[in-house]
């Protein structure tokens, strides 16, 4: 029970992931992105070794198709995994194991994968991909958020006893640096995609200030002074 968008921005080469799930603290599992190398995610019944292993294979030069084959041969429980792999050129492959639960599947577009399991149906991954591709000129994090919101609005996850809410969610974007350009999460919430949007909007007010403060500290004003420059409605209580 999870839905995910994995994507490369063709304009910038940034690698990104958006994920929402009934499980809590999902951000812990999202260690499959690396600047200029690729993006990968294993979900459903997670093999936590897969993401770092797949990234090393991509870095060595394996194609996404070949990476997926190596993951399969290296894992006796491969059929329980759902996996997406994208390389730095946007070549994308995905696998939804036959033993993942509920409605489970994926959709692939150039440079993007929508995938999920225990979903309300195929229309959820279609909506995620449509949400992502709707605004190709937007920055990657906005496209990832739009994809998650479209997945939520299409019905999201459906368990045995009905709709399952998103209890955690995350957006991660890597640019050139070997640290994340954006890594924002909701680990425990009743409506994690909604909360992720709120947190993102608030963080967006500070992002430029945080970046500049580190790069040019001598010119940085203290944060409590910066906060007073925000619109009145955006200032913390």
């Amino acid at each position: 029970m999870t839905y995910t968008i994995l994507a490369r921005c063709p304009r910038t080469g940034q690698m990104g992931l958006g994920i929402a799930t009934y499980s809590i603290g999902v951000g812990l599992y999202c260690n499959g992105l690396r600047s200029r190398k690729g993006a990968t995610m294993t979900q459903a019944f997670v093999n936590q070794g897969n993401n770092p292993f797949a990234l090393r294979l991509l870095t060595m030069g394996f194609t996404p198709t070949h990476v997926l084959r190596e993951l399969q041969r290296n894992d006796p429980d491969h059929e329980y995994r759902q996996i997406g792999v994208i390389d730095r050129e946007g070549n994308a492959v995905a696998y939804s194991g036959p033993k993942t639960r509920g409605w489970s599947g994926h959709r692939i577009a150039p440079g993007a994968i929508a995938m999920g399991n225990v979903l309300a149906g195929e229309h959820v991954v279609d909506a995620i991909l449509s949400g992502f591709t709707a605004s190709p000129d937007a920055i990657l994090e906005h496209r990832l958020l739009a994809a998650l919101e479209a997945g939520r609005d299409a019905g999201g996850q459906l368990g045995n006893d009905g709709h399952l809410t998103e209890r955690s969610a995350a957006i991660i974007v890597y640019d050139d640096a070997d640290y994340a350009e954006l890594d924002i999460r909701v680990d425990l919430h009743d409506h994690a995609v909604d909360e992720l949007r709120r947190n993102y909007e608030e963080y967006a007010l500070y992002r430029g200030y945080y970046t500049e403060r580190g790069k040019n500290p001598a010119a940085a004003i203290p944060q409590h002074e910066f906060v007073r420059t925000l619109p009145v409605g955006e200032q913390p209580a």
Partner: protein
Amino acid sequence: MTYSIIARCARTGRLGLGIATYSLVVGGRCEGVAANIGICKTQAFPNRHNDPFAIKLLADGYLPARVMEILAANDPQHEYRQIAIMDREGRIAAHTGPRTRGWSGHLLNTDCVAFGNGLVGEQVLTGMIEGFLADPATPLEYRLMHALEAGRDAGGQGDATTHRTERSAAIKVVDRNDYPDIDVRVDVHPIAVDRLREVLDEYKKYEIFYRDRGRNPSQAIPQDVFVAGLKAAPPK
């Protein structure tokens, strides 16, 4: 303004970081925790390159003290940074730049460093170390949580006239694998340390279920069934 602790569990070799700050989404800027290698955290006016660079240097075999010298030589703004480094054997280096703001400092103890800036005073760091050392038998994530709570209770961030709340917080622990063992965060919240305790306690109820589900999927019950069981008989 931030207070942090980096630490090593002497029993298990696990490495961890606990951090709380007025800034938003601090957990998204904590990549310097590497299993079997060490920890580096740069804060105050952070140079984001420092932590991944330091981890590479530690992995190459440089001692923490030498890593710190290299970071200093590599950064014209080193005086604005606050940095703590620990290797997998518990060797430590710490630096509080003279240009960090407010009350700023670090405190070393066995297998841990507490460090912070924009704090109400040294009692915050003293409290964190005491919180960390209070129960060495408990898992590292709880010791880090105790340290953050003790830092909060000792006054946390602010100055003589103003207290500044924690708006984000995180705990990250690595064991032997190249993915984290514990990685819990609160990114935007009015009292983030309090909320982090709730998230950690809730996550710990699921930790074994999540791990076993991935390692032994054919035996896993669906999560909604697991959750129903939790509600019927909460773990003690």
